């Protein structure tokens, strides 16, 4: 069977604040060396699906660099390939993708080139390990037109998702859907859509032509509820771990969850692959720990130099932790430098941040949320934007956001209180 995968990787996810200012959610770094989209790409590789279109819209360049030739996931060869599909001008003067279904609709010509029997539509935003072959076999066994993968979530948060109502005939594996509600206020079930759709190509084409004319651009909101009853729509029950990281808290926790000997998200067992040419990761030397280094319960990749103290943290390639510096409960992206005597507590520092000597970040109490993002940033995390330079001895309390690309001279005071947005 001929299967083409389409990854929706263009979304920004405003809830991640400055982390997604310059990159889509799918390109956010995760777990010490990866980008979030690596999970979908590695799943495809391990499932033997080797033809993939990647639909990007928001700030595509980081994705274009990351996917490269696709060789990292073995998408290279005469009949294999990974293609970035940005919006392009069509018959209408501006054809930005208006929604998930519209993005696929605008690339029907790409799909037609390969004439696949099935189109597997995925999101690039989630952290999970799945053999799509199981979903495909389920789909074929039920002779389905559309199969959607669902995962169980706690009742309390179920209304954040599209929810399945299964037919009584559904078993442990799944079954026919009798209803689908997109983010209902009162949850109708706890089976949440993973936004993984397997379509018979003919059905997909037919549905998209019908719906796009009527301005229905989203699969979850507009299309799936209308298909039930008219097509053979099935729900597949996924039993594995599904990391949903749409808020800063969830993102931070999903990283901290890796700090165990055998974590639920087991990067080693999952054999997640990334593009080591992106950011020159592959040219970096192994990490060096000097005689004063003290590191515990942390993840670290190549190219780091540690002289200070690192505890309960995730450290990406190229990070420098100088002597007497202390990094605790933090996530430090590529090439950030923590200078002598600086302390970071529960900080997410974006790529290339430079933390000056004796700077203290994440001190004080988390008694006020962030002024700009009061609903999203209140648990005490502090975010340092990309390439920002924090001058010596500055103190920054919890729930603060420091905007990207600030120069040391742009800091006009020495103490920033809980919840400030520094720009």
């Amino acid at each position: 069977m001929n299967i083409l995968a389409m990854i929706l990787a263009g979304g920004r996810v405003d809830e991640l604040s400055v982390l997604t200012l310059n990159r889509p959610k799918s390109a956010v770094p995760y777990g010490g060396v990866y980008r979030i989209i690596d999970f979908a790409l590695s799943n495809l590789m391990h499932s033997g699906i080797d033809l993939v279109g990647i639909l990007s819209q928001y700030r595509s360049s980081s994705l274009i660099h990351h996917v490269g030739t696709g060789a990292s996931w073995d998408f290279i060869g005469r009949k294999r390939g990974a293609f970035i599909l940005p919006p392009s001008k069509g018959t209408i003067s501006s054809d930005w993708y208006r929604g998930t279904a519209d993005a696929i609709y605008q690339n029907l010509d790409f799909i037609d080139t390969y004439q696949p029997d099935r189109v597997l539509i995925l999101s690039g935003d989630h952290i999970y390990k799945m053999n799509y072959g199981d979903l495909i076999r389920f789909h074929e066994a039920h002779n389905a037109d559309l199969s959607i993968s669902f995962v169980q979530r706690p009742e309390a948060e179920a209304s954040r998702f599209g929810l399945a109502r299964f037919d009584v005939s559904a078993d442990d594996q799944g079954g026919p859907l009798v209803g689908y509600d997109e983010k209902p206020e009162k949850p109708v079930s706890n089976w949440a859509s993973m936004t993984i759709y397997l379509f018979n190509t003919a059905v997909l084409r037919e549905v998209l032509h019908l719906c796009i004319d009527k301005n229905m651009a989203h699969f979850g909101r507009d299309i799936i509820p209308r298909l039930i009853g008219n097509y053979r729509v099935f729900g597949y029950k996924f039993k594995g771990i599904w990391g949903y990281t749409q808020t800063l808290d969830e993102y931070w926790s999903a990283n901290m969850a890796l700090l165990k000997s055998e974590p639920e998200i087991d990067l080693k067992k999952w054999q997640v692959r990334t593009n080591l040419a992106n950011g020159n990761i592959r040219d970096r030397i192994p990490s060096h720990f000097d005689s004063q280094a003290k590191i515990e319960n942390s993840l670290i990749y190549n190219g780091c130099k540690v002289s200070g103290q690192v505890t309960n943290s995730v450290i990406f390639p190229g990070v420098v932790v100088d002597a007497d510096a202390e990094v605790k409960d933090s996530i430090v992206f590529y090439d950030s430098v923590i200078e002598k005597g600086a302390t970071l507590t529960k900080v997410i520092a974006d790529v290339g941040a430079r933390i000056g000597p004796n700077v203290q970040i994440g001190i004080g109490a988390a008694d006020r949320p962030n002024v700009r993002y009061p609903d999203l940033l209140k648990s005490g995390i502090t975010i340092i934007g990309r390439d920002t330079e924090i001058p010596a001895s500055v103190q920054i309390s919890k729930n603060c956001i420091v905007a990207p690309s600030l120069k040391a001279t742009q800091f006009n005071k020495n103490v920033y209180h809980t919840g400030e947005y520094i720009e």
Partner: protein
Amino acid sequence: MNDTLAMILAGGVGSRLNILSYWRAKPAVPFGGIYRIIDFTLSNAANSGIENVAVLTQYKPLSIMRHIGTGEPWDLVGRTRGVKILPPSQGRKDSDWYQGTADAIRQNIDYINNYDSPHVLVLSGDHIYQMDYRKIINYHKEKKADVTIAMLVIHDLEEAKGFGIAITDAEMKIIDWEEKPQQPRNNLASMGVYVFKKEFLLQALKEVRGDDFGKHIIPYCLADKEVRLYAYPFDGYWRDVGTLRAFWAANMDLLDKKSGLDLDNWQIMTSLQEANQIADSPPTYIGPGAEVKDSIISPGCEIHGTVLRSILSPGVYVGKDSRILNSVIMHDSMIGDNCLLNEVIADKSITIESNCQIGVGPGKNVNQKFPDHVNTGLVIIGKLARVPAGTTIGRNCIIFPNIEASVYPGKFIEDGETIMARDSIEKGGLLFT
């Protein structure tokens, strides 16, 4: 730089590396966590802008071939760039194995003639050093030399004894040569790096009957006053890691900022695509209670114990309460709980079960079977070998590749002992005959 063709001699047996080169040619022996020895020469060539590199293999070439692949990691891919593996092939005689360094080049004259490059740079794949070949090539051109030899400036004459030594005039023209002299007359030691004017190289290979650069080609040059044979002094880091002690010490030099071996300033590139290489490795996890100091750690490791002054390749596991000291531990090796390793070189995929002590004891004996190879206290553990739980191993010991727990005579292995199976020698026969 496409006026110079590089030829790397990578066929050496490296018998003094003992069981490390049981499975592979010496240039393919892992080094510095993620590298192999030949990465230094390949990266030097790539960093010097040399576009075409040939790698001459003979002894157990598989790991080298797999490692080099298309040459892409060193950017030796493209319309004008490339790396070619040149194994011995049958010629006019029945068996044309390479008889020596010069003979290996001689048998590949066809390859050299395929290129217009007027200069040929002959290199060895056995050495750890960082060198910009552009400088010696420019020097060679300025001197209008027929041959230029890179000479390490040796600061302690005692150390010059094991090398080919050049005696030069004021212009650095080589006027005499001593091979491994007892009392060196000069401090310039050959690094096995030669730049030849192509025409001269072809002529010399035709006229000289002998097969070795040091023994035959250099005397040929010296015999004729007209031949422009020059020394190029090099005063940087260079090590022939031909012995286990030198191999271990060069690894340790990576931990010493003052050693002169500085991977930050001269990029060493390697292939990450081989099986078990770091392309599939997650970040290293350093657990609660672990201690890692003065060490180099590759990705994919899991460390629960203490690692001091050591080099870990990808995928190494160190159990709780274990201490790894002054050691080099290669890929995917597993060290259980409550072990002590001191001055150990462990090849890939070894297993040390819990409660072992390795490299402890007074070191009163050198290795009894291989006294010339293992005599400074190091313990060498071969690929895929296993050390059963609770074993104590003294110093100067060798554990052969693939050794199973059942082969051990007891829980105490004394200084200088070797653990091998009945068929170990047979399997390693090529190496030890």
